[in-house]
């Protein structure tokens, strides 16, 4: 057995004494273990999911009938803004980050990510940013200019609401950018010996594309947000037409980020589906290379379609043509994946476990969203569709019916690995069916509402337009979704009442994370595995003949015993005994540094001295981090 060394007390260097706890509250605050950070991301994202969902329920209550009176216009505007901001920046992105953080090292055969303390920092910065944005509710007004914050409304509307928006998103942006650096380097540079890029799981490829999208899209919105901040706070004129500025510049900045962002939102879920389908169909992913290349293509082309969100802005027929065509082009690699997934199911031996149900529903629902997306690319038709509920339907089909369903698939699939217990299958199926029914009941009718003339972002509508029936149906659907989420919560809580006895490989899966115990030890692998093929774990369990016929490898062969991890006796690694695995030590400095950010934010809004104090805290945090050794 390997021994793990924990850093000694009373470090010689550094500003603060090194934390040493490995269990308990403080161990979570100072952890740099990617698995714990992944869990923190996941729990926090889920909490925001509940809050964003409640905001949605209020929206649906308000819109259930014409001339609704549940929410005032000003509260409604805050709610729909915060629903969007929450779901995009505080739910889907961090939930994807949870999976990336937990599983990237495990799937590539590494012990941790490239920069563990940076990893911790990204979580705390994300939490700080999310709480900062929400604090607006208590400090004068939450963001109310829409999640897209179009200028000049966002720069001239009185109140601090949009300052919370700009500053909060700058904070979460810092978190995501830092995370992108970390995870991209990890995937590119820390793969186990023998794991070439084309032996990486598809989830890893999607993760890599997402990190690169983040790295190149976030700087643009960063500049835009600073411009908005400066227009509001320091009198600049970036979006001020009275000084010759162009409000449309904001839209360009926003969508140059915003479009890659939607691929950032959906590619992780596509990666998860690409993992889940082969496991439960008992066949490899059909056309691994095509799926990988289509993901890369989507990443690239995704930077060339942004103005399809602006077809009605008046950019002119040349621009509208160019972006209409580029949008049609990007439909191709997206469609290819659907067929590859279906090819995976073909002639498979499909077990409809809960994760599989979610994955298959992803495909079905993403197709709907993709098709409505193609109709948007027909630019003149988009002149009717844009800014209506038809668009709301489209993006909920791809982001909820797609991304969230994919993420739920991942939750059910990987729950035993993370928590050592299975989620209950029957409750899981109830969760699934309620969610499918509720989701389609909510968002299906919105296609009709949009085509019948219902614009977006309105807190009410008159009874004379005939929009009442489908709005009511949508509201009912929303409450069914809420019920399904509650059922999931019950399932989660119930799982913790069971003993932690899940097998290492309960699904008979294909990738390396299933080769270690559930949950994995702190050091992930006793010995770093040597990889010989794609779906490495599968090939250790089963041998494949020329014709693709599969026979199990006899037990006792090299590294076949999943309970003890690879290399326990085989020729691949060194002997397991006698090695001390040094893990990166826990640290206070990521939290300290992250704490500086909201202080700066509040300072910019209220009192400049607080911003200076925040900057000092940030500097202290960063310096302490730089001086502190990785481990002792």
């Amino acid at each position: 057995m390997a021994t793990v060394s924990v850093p000694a007390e009373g470090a010689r260097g550094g500003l603060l004494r090194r934390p040493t706890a490995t269990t308990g509250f403080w161990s979570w605050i100072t952890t740099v273990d990617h698995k714990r950070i992944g869990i923190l991301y996941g729990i926090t994202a889920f909490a925001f999911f509940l809050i964003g969902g409640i905001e949605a329920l209020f929206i649906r209550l308000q819109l259930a009938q014409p001339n609704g009176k549940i929410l005032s216009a000003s509260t409604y505007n805050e709610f729909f803004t915060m629903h969007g901001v929450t779901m995009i920046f505080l739910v889907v992105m961090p939930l994807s980050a949870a999976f990336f953080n937990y599983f990237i090292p495990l799937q590539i055969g590494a012990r941790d990510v490239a920069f563990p303390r940076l990893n911790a920092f990204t979580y705390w910065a994300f939490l700080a940013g999310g709480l900062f944005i929400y604090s607006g509710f208590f400090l004068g007004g939450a963001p109310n200019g829409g999640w897209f914050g179009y200028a000049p409304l966002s720069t001239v509307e009185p109140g601090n609401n949009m300052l919370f928006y700009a500053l909060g998103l700058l904070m979460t942006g810092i978190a995501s950018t830092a995370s992108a650096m970390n995870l991209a380097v990890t995937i590119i540079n820390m793969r186990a010996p023998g794991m070439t890029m084309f032996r990486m799981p598809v989830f890893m490829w999607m993760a890599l594309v997402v990190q690169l999208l983040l790295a190149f899209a976030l700087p643009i919105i960063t500049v835009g947000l600073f411009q908005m901040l400066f227009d509001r706070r320091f009198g600049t004129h970036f979006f001020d037409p009275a000084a010759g500025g162009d409000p449309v510049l904001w839209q360009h900045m926003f969508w140059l980020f915003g479009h890659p962002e939607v691929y950032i939102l959906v590619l992780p879920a596509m990666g998860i589906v690409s993992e889940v389908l082969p496991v439960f169909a008992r066949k490899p992913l059909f056309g691994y290379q095509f799926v990988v290349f289509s993901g890369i293509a989507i990443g690239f082309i995704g930077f060339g379609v942004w103005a399809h969100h602006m077809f009605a802005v008046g950019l002119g027929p040349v621009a509208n043509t160019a972006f209409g065509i580029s949008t049609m082009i990007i439909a191709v690699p997206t469609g290819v994946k659907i067929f590859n997934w279906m090819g995976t199911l073909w002639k498979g031996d499909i077990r409809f476990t809960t994760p599989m149900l979610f994955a298959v529903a992803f495909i079905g629902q993403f197709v709907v969203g993709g098709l409505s997306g193609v109709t948007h690319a027909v630019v003149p038709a988009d002149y009717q569709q844009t800014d209506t509920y038809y668009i709301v339907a489209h993006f909920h089909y791809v982001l909820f019916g797609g991304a969230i369903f994919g993420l739920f698939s991942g939750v059910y699939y990987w729950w035993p690995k993370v928590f050592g217990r299975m989620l209950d299958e029957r409750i899981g199926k109830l969760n699934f069916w309620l969610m499918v029914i509720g989701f389609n009941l909510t968002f299906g009718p919105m296609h009709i509402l949009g085509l019948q003339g219902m614009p977006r972002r309105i807190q009410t509508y008159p009874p004379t337009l005939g929009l009442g029936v489908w709005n009511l149906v949508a509201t009912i659907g929303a409450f069914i979704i809420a019920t399904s989420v509650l059922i999931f919560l019950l399932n989660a809580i119930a799982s913790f009442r069971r003993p932690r006895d899940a097998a290492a490989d309960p699904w008979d899966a294909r990738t390396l994370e299933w080769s270690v115990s559930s949950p994995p030890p702190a050091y992930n692998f006793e010995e770093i595995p040597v990889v010989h093929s794609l779906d490495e774990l599968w090939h250790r369990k089963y041998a494949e003949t020329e014709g693709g016929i599969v026979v199990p490898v006899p037990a006792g062969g090299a590294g076949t015993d999943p309970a003890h991890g690879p290399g326990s006796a085989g020729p691949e690694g060194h002997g397991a005994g006698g090695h001390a695995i040094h893990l990166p030590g826990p640290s206070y400095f990521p939290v300290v540094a992250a704490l500086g950010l909201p202080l700066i934010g509040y300072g910019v809004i209220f009192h400049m001295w607080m911003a200076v104090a925040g900057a000092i805290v940030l500097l202290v945090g960063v310096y302490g981090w730089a001086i502190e050794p990785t481990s002792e």
Partner: protein
Amino acid sequence: MESVHTFESEHEATSTGLPNTKLAMWLFLASDCLLFGALISTYVLYRGASLVGPYPSEVFDIPYTSVSSFVLLASSLTMVLALAAIQRGEMGRMRVWLLATALLGMTFVGGQVYEFTTFYREGLTLSTNLFGTTFYVLTGFHGTHVGVGVLMLLSLVAMSFTGRITSRDTMAVELVGLYWHFVDIVWIVIFTVVYLIPTGK
């Protein structure tokens, strides 16, 4: 007995052969390119769009800014010399060249501060017109980058005194060097686009 596997990422084997920190720095600089790209694009888009003065041709002092640009360029040379010094194990020399780089960087920033206060007295503020808005924000972001670089340089010097940085740590100097050269190159682009290309106003 126990063979210890330390977890310092610079010394572990990597899939590409490049150390993690170096790869991360390159990725960060690539990302930073887009940051400056967005800022420079905004400047270019709004060039000539100011409704009121002062206009660039009225306030720019090209000879002055050329000198400060040269100062920044020279600092890249001293940076290279600092790296060469630590690669030869000459810590004393390294400190000298690092300090020189920092000093030149501070001179550059000082020169900008003087330049901006002059513009301010001539009536150009953040809120005067689009030129003031885009110019100060662009050069301000760049100046901040230079400032952070100076802090990193001085930190390297300080750490070399306390023994935290030894002749083994060429990577640290190399990384700061990469960042510093990037900031320099960005300035060349800014100087050309903002100062040298005539706008007719």
